[in-house]
């Protein structure tokens, strides 16, 4: 094994490890919903290659309003799915789409793009 091979092997394995850590094990951005005076828990989410924030904490039994602003035209993010709440919505580019829910049960509910590549979750407490 020559020097180049050692370099490539070590570098490759390190890179593979980095990829795994970055996508699966690093901490995510979590935001708790702010309740408006009327009792609606509102959260603004920007959609651009992903959802930011992508973990949203809400309280159960209170209405939730998620405002998705899609800041890109890329077709990957054009659909929003929240299977647990029966939501399938097209998000128009550069517009805010409101999604209203009433979470009744605690738990972690994923929302994804149409193909399940972009992910976020709603944590109901």
């Amino acid at each position, binding site marked *: 094994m020559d020097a180049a091979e050692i370099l*490539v*092997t070590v570098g*490759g394995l390190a890179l*593979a490890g980095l990829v795994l850590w970055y996508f699966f094990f690093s901490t*995510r951005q979590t935001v708790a919903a702010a309740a408006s005076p009327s009792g609606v828990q509102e959260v603004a989410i920007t959609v651009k*290659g992903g959802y930011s924030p992508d973990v949203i904490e809400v309280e159960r039994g209170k209405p939730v309003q998620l405002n998705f602003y899609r800041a890109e035209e890329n077709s990957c993010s054009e659909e929003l*799915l929240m299977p647990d709440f029966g939501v399938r919505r097209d998000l128009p580019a550069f517009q805010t789409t409101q999604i209203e829910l009433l979470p009744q049960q605690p738990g972690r509910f994923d929302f994804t793009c149409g193909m399940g590549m972009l992910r976020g979750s709603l944590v109901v407490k």
Partner: protein
Amino acid sequence: MSATPETTTLDIEGMTCASCASFVERSLSRTPGVQNALVNLATEKATVQYLPDQVTPAAIKEAVVKAGYGVTERAPDTSAADRQADLDAQKARAYRQLKRRFAVAAGLALVIMPLSMLMLWPALLERVNVSWLNYALLLLTLPVLLYSGREFYVSAWNGLRHRAANMDTLIAVGTGAAFLYSLAATVVPGYFHRRGIMPEVYYDTTATIIALILLGKVLELRAKTQTSAAMKSLLGLQAKTARVVRPGGQEMDVPLAQLQLGDTVVVRPGEKVATDGVVTEGHSSVNEAMLTGESLPVEKLPGAAVFGATLNTTGSFRFRVTKVGADTLLAQIVKLVEEAQGSRAPIQRLADKVSAVFVPTVVVIAILTFVLWFDLAPESTRLPLALVNFVAVLIIACPCALGLATPTAMMVSTGKGAEHGVLIRNAEALEKAYQVDTVLLDKTGTITQGEPAVTDFVAPGQNAAHVLQLAAAVERHSEHPLAAAVVRHAEAQSAGGSMSVTGFRAVEGKGAAATVEGQAVLIGNRRLLSDEGVLLSAELAALADQLLAQAKTVLYVAVAGRAAALLGVADTVRDTSAAAIKKLQALGIEVVMMTGDNSQTAAQVAAQVGIGRYFAEVLPADKAATVKALQAEGRTVAMVGDGINDAPALAQADVGLAIGSGTDVAMQAAGITLMRSDLHGVVTAIELSRQTIRTIKQNLFFAFVYNILGIPIAAGLLYPVLGWLLSPMLAAGAMALSSVSVLTNSLRLRAFDNH
């Protein structure tokens, strides 16, 4: 010559009371050129019909301002149909852009490919300057990368910042690596030569991959718009305006959004019904196929319910608006279909889990492929081989096929179902319907009409038609459901006609009496006759016993103090029931009936429609228990009921099918709602579920097998055995075709038709 009148709507500001509204209305009506003005205080809107050659919209606004009120510019309308139109425009624009980007990539790739091939002819290569050739290829490739492929890199970068990876990530990394390597080989070939490596370039690979992936995307987008076609046609059903009758009797076309509860709307022959309501005058038959899938027009008389988006045929009628906007049946159907399309089938769970980790995993596999090829291949070729296989792995992997497998099939099938009057609540209900092996029918309202009808009429030694006419004349004044059955029967026998009826009285729990054409007529149960001192002949008594033995209700008719006739009334079996049950049995499903009737009646109905197993004398409270009993036998049970009094049983069943007669959408407890009131809907639902789940299974199988085989082959796993390596360009072609294949397979469901 005057032009055709136009209609405009203004949002009026500052109106506080009814007199303000009438003031604005007067001011508008007096404006020359205005034909008609309607001001609505509640919605703060004025609808004005005017002649465009005599008055302008600006002058109309001025008339409002002169009256002392303001006009606000109309806010953009955001009805579901408008939103859909907005989205469609956006998608159409995106599609055009995508096609342009593909055209550029394909055109340049067609030039780049043959130029790169020059390297294959050493004789030719000696005459050209390789360095210049590489620079020329670089220049040709740049637009492909920066214009056509830009979105991949932007999307990959945006995703990366969110720790999300998608298909674009794979393409960006793959083509980026090939391009950067080529760039280095072009700019500093000497560095490669010194290490004994040929400075090969992969511009053709980069450009071709981008062109092929874009081709795949173009095809995918085109197919995808077709998956929601049924949904769009549902939204497109809605009428745009309604012809409202004002209290003064004038008629005026009003935009749908301004229609109010209680308004009276005129529907002329051939027009669409604007919204849901109750017929107040006139009669016609209305084609409700778009909502219920029932192809025969439905007769509408005063008191009948009509629904928005249905089509009036030849008659004309007026109706009172009872529901508008989101409360209408059409809006509820649209909402239900939308929700169903957003649901995930349990069958998709594995695919979901896989796609969540798919892209990063593929990136890791690609890195390991690079390392292994670099370590194991001969030194002179190890770098190009490692690179080519690295790129091939990234490009061939197709997360889209996995992601598209279920949703596209669901989109097509829920839309198709709605077209046939079968509303599917979610993917889970569809998947359960696929597994069903037993269908439990609640007799009343499903197998039978659910309302009494006259089955027998005997009038020994009498003018039967005349007696029937007399009986019907009395019953016309009664509100009892049995009376309605008698009237319907008489009308069907064309024994209607008007007779003078005086002294009508209903006798609580017994029947009714009246004087018809001077004769005293009684109609009711046996007690009514005995109470009134009417004796029953032995012949009639025997006939009555026969009818009672058949579990029918018997009505006795007496004319001028003498018993004259008997009517047998029973809930009748629908014409379609036997055929539908036969079809279900042909699908390999056991059909079981339950009823509150005694076992004698139950046996009779069961035999009539070809059902072998039944539960009789089931109390309403025990319906759910009956479902449980069947489930305990290890069966997957579909329960079919009218959705009103058997909600618990519908909920207990593995899948509940509610037969709504188009009037009351009892969708809550049922997984599937049938808009048409006959059992053929059950057959349609089960056949549709079978085809859909089969399609989803095929899609998932294809998507998994494609990736499971494709990735190792691209990594060069077959090289030691067969000497096979996969060109990244071939990988791009396979990848583009894979998601299109899944989509095309889902679109096959559009051909679904139950015969």
